[in-house]
């Protein structure tokens, strides 16, 4: 009899696969977090009207109040337009990231385009004394090119097909609140100055965002995930904030064991929640296939 041991590991073909997929783990503590992109285009919009500052200084030196008003007023309006453009770009990115999303309540890019046009027309008329026709043409050119370069704001709600508008609003609101709770938890964890705990909380935040994405992809999951959203997530945030406060006062030593126990419970609970949502999707798909096959049989296609 040979003492040789058969070669094989967890990923060998003969070994059975686990019944449910393992919960996703973050590749790094930045996984799932949003990045803030720097935009050269936006910087250009802020810098383009800089000559108006000099015009305003010149107005002060020559004690010309009217010139001061249109030059610095126009500069302020163009800066506001650039700011709104940046906000509009961020809102559009957030809309693109979401599977279920409402359009932004305030159309920032369109207002920015209109404001740019009015400002350029006013500056051309009062400052450059170009005449009304040419000023209006420049204003229209600024508005048109702004729309062409930066686009317009999203106008329609997306995702959630077959769901009433009021329900869609409720889902979007709940998801926004949940995202905010996760962000507050991560922020509180950063003040802990404890790499092990911070890493565990980051992993939980990653798992939570994964569950939120799952709810986004099928808003009907919201009802099943109510406890997760209102009890588990909020509980994690509150406990983390309290633990961080106690830690900053040096009183967290006795609470650490309890807090770690809570994290362990939540890790299990989050994994169960995700598996339950995925299993529900699988069940829904099975039912759909069953119904379709029955129909095909009835129609004699099978």
């Amino acid at each position, binding site marked *: 009899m040979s003492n040789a041991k058969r070669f094989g590991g967890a990923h060998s073909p003969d070994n059975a696969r686990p019944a449910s997929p393992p919960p996703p783990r973050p590749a790094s503590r930045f996984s799932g977090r949003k990045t803030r992109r720097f935009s050269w285009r936006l910087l250009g919009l802020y810098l383009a009207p800089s000559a108006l500052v000099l015009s305003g200084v010149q107005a002060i030196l020559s004690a010309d109040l009217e010139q001061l008003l249109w030059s610095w007023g126009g500069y302020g309006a163009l800066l506001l337009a650039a700011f709104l453009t940046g906000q509009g770009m961020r809102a559009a990115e957030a809309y693109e990231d979401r599977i279920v999303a409402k359009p932004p309540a305030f159309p920032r890019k369109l207002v920015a385009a209109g404001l740019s046009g009015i400002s350029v027309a006013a500056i051309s008329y009062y*400052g450059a004394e170009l005449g009304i026709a040419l000023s209006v043409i420049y204003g229209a*050119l*600024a508005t048109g090119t702004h729309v062409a370069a930066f686009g317009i704001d999203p106008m329609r709600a997306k995702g959630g097909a077959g769901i009433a508008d009021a329900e869609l609003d409720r889902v979007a609101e709940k998801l926004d609140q949940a995202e905010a709770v996760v962000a507050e938890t991560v922020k509180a964890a950063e003040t802990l100055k404890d790499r092990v705990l911070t890493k565990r909380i980051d992993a939980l935040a990653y798992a939570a965002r994964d569950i939120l994405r799952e709810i986004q992809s099928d808003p009907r999951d919201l009802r099943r995930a109510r406890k997760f959203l209102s009890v588990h997530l909020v509980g994690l945030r509150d406990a983390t904030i309290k633990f961080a406060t106690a830690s900053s006062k040096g009183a967290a030593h006795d609470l650490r064991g309890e807090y770690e126990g809570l994290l362990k419970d939540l890790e299990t609970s989050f994994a169960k929640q995700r598996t339950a949502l995925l299993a529900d999707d699988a069940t829904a798909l099975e039912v759909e296939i069953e119904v379709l096959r029955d129909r095909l049989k009835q129609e004699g296609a099978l």
Partner: protein
Amino acid sequence: MKTLAYIVLVLTIGLSSCATLIADPAHPVAVVVAE
């Protein structure tokens, strides 16, 4: 197309702002341009 529109937009804002300086006949830049 977007890049072209952006360049035209920045030029429109920039040149209309600069034109306010040149429009004043007493400004040194306007004097140089006039000469």
